[in-house]
């Protein structure tokens, strides 16, 4: 797995978003570039959680918001590197549900929020055998 280098502004945006939507889950995309060993996350962008009903344990991105994100990457010569979301009152570890819908290539950043405060940020990516492996942030 590659290392993740997250721009401070992008990291703070994800943490603040996770705290602002607490006790619901938040979601967003992030963009940047990568070389052979490091993914550089340069920008994070909030996306509405389109999950109908209870959002405390679920998030969903509307397909049109996804298409918009792909278009943004193409127009700005950047790469859509993955998705962040929050786990209110749960650890920053992917759930079975996260695994079921995970895409190859994307980094999945999870922000664990306890009592409304962001306490842990971890990132995961599917390996060749479709198992999540942690990507080291730093």
């Amino acid at each position: 797995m590659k290392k993740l280098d997250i721009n401070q502004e992008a990291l703070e945006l994800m943490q603040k978003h996770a705290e602002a939507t607490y006790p619901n889950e938040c979601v967003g995309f992030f963009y940047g570039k990568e070389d052979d060993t490091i993914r550089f996350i340069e920008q994070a962008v909030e996306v509405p959680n389109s999950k109908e009903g209870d959002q405390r344990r679920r998030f969903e991105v509307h397909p049109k918001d996804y298409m918009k994100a792909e278009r943004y990457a193409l127009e700005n010569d950047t790469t859509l590197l993955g998705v962040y979301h929050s786990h209110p009152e749960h650890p920053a570890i992917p759930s079975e549900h996260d695994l079921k819908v995970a895409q190859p290539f994307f980094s999945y950043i999870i922000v664990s929020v306890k009592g409304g405060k962001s306490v842990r940020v971890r990132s995961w990516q599917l390996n060749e055998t479709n198992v999540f492996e942690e990507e080291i942030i730093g």
Partner: protein
Amino acid sequence: MAKIIIPTPLRKFTQNQASFEGNGSTVGATIENLTETYPDIKQHLLDENGKLRNFVRVYIGDEDIKALQNEATEVKDDSVISIVPAIAGGSL
């Protein structure tokens, strides 16, 4: 030929091409043309019965093909087909 926009996570199966000009008179046939050209992408788009996987949505322009005729939806030469992976999850 209609254009298929390949989502970023699946571009490693299309030699990093962001789009594909496909032959076919329907969405299904155009996607089949894509999977014949890049066989490794097939398992990410279609199930064992050759139907679109549950976690994949397909749009023509701004319209979900589910609101049209699904895979039988006709395409024109200037149609833009977007493959949209489901982005969802949650803590439990």
